[in-house]
């Protein structure tokens, strides 16, 4: 798989999935860069890993439970304080339907 090519069309598809608006010039640049990067990353494809359990978190997680109670009593004002646009204590977005 080391001849993997991430062409402009693939980049545009990935950008769409990633919710990233990019222009033609960016797509061209990302295509070249990602092809090179993924080509290099592909070297792991030849390593024998049959039957190896994937490691998704590095240490044994000692699971613990905490009581489900509300402790952080933020005000609605605090919660919307960072909103780019708001109306009272509500988040405001442009009409998008």
């Amino acid at each position, binding site marked *: 798989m080391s001849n993997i090519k991430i062409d402009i069309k693939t980049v545009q598809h990935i950008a769409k999935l990633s919710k990233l608006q990019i222009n033609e010039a960016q797509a061209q640049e990302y295509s070249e860069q990602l092809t090179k990067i993924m080509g290099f990353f592909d070297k792991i494809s030849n390593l024998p890993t049959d039957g190896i359990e994937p490691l998704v978190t590095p240490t044994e997680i000692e699971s613990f439970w905490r009581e489900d109670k509300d402790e952080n009593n933020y005000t609605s004002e*605090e919660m919307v304080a960072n909103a780019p646009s708001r109306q009272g204590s509500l988040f405001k977005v442009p009409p998008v339907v």
Partner: protein
Amino acid sequence: MEITFSSLKQISDAIKTKQTSAVEVTKHFLSRIEKLDKKLNSYVLVNDQAVAEAQLIDDKIQKGEKLGLLAGVPFGIKDMLCTKNLRTTAGSKILENFIPPYDSTVVKKLKAAGVVVLGKLNQDEFAMGSSNETSFFGAVKNPWNTDYVPGGSSGGSAAAQAARLAAGTIGTDTGGSIRQPASFCGVVGVKPTYGRVSRYGIIAYASSLDQAGPMVSSVEDAALTLEVICGHDELDGTSSQKSVPHFASKLNSDIKGMRIGILEEAMKDGLHPDVEKTVQNGIETLKKLGAEIVPVSLSLIENSIPVYYLIAASEASSNLARYDGVRYGFRAEMRESSATLDDFYAMTRGIGFGAEVQRRIMIGTFCLSSGYYDAYYTKACQVRRLIKNEYDEAFKKCDVILSPVASTAAFKIGDRITDPLKMYLNDIFTTSTNLAGLPGMSVPFGLSKERLPIGLQLTAQAFEEQKLLNVGLALENASSIKKEQPHVI
């Protein structure tokens, strides 16, 4: 009292015994920032409440109240860590106006110990970078030579600490982001075991790899800071419940009989001669101190870069999905009334994220997408287990592994930023530590011909930070760089 070069303990003791005051110490560092940071760009924000917060510590002293381990000691905090009512950006345009309503657990613990937050430190955007050149707020410069990078992603922390623009700093490390800049700027940096330090309130990059840790001027300062920031936190589901040792009081530079593993793969071709010499000097030093030197091998280490980047990018693509321009952060202006909800998100994220962040989101999205998941993400996680297994084998033969932090000292600003893959390859010796969840450390030990610092990396088994610190102390005592000063100080 001499403040600039004092240890954290000396500063705190002097404040507690009223030889100086928290306000005086804070003002001292603020004036240093004012005077010197124009040359470095290490701070993205100076806390205008710092003096007022220091005054609260002095008030406590006046009233004879109980004080924490770091009472009155001013720290700079990497901008990945949320600070209540103090802007936190992760070095990104998308968070350029974000003011958290809460403190990250690390900052909460530091404040509880009496730390005064001086300000927020520059970094690569979302900690994605190895040179601090991807920051929305501009590159940070290396205090030893301002033509050079300070390393990354915690470049602001490393530069500020090296130039003594804080008594101590905090960085984060996902694939080397504490250890590599610590090496490049000649400071001590510790990445704790995964789970040792709570990730609550630290802006998430790659959740199975991220850890915060101290970037300070000495091993003793690192030990003291670790005592404060480590410990169980019920707000982080991966937080360890193991008790935290008194790292500082248990510091012991007597390493006689300790087994130090030398990473064979790291000593092959490709190391810069100055780095190789520094590692050899480190080995000789430890030998003289009575340590037993044993060769160890991590045959898969060259695969740690693909494995790390595939996993980190996958996790990042998911973690960064939250930046949608609705609840906080940057929002693109919508000009066309026909735009859809997807257009709204895509415009915001297209402008709000820089190129390196976009690349990693796309790599991650690609790896996790239908048809590629098993070939990339699952495969990377399988190799991750094999790398961890190799570490387990290596630690049957030794207590601590010694290796370079990076194959070179700091490189020039602009040298690698145009070639992302070249930048990634820089992380060859640091990423495997995060993949295996182990504690790692960088201790300043040598200087390159260009008079740039070179650190040595130490790695230990999970939760064995004390061993790292003890070997680190032994190296520090013999370090040739101890008496050297950066250019900007």
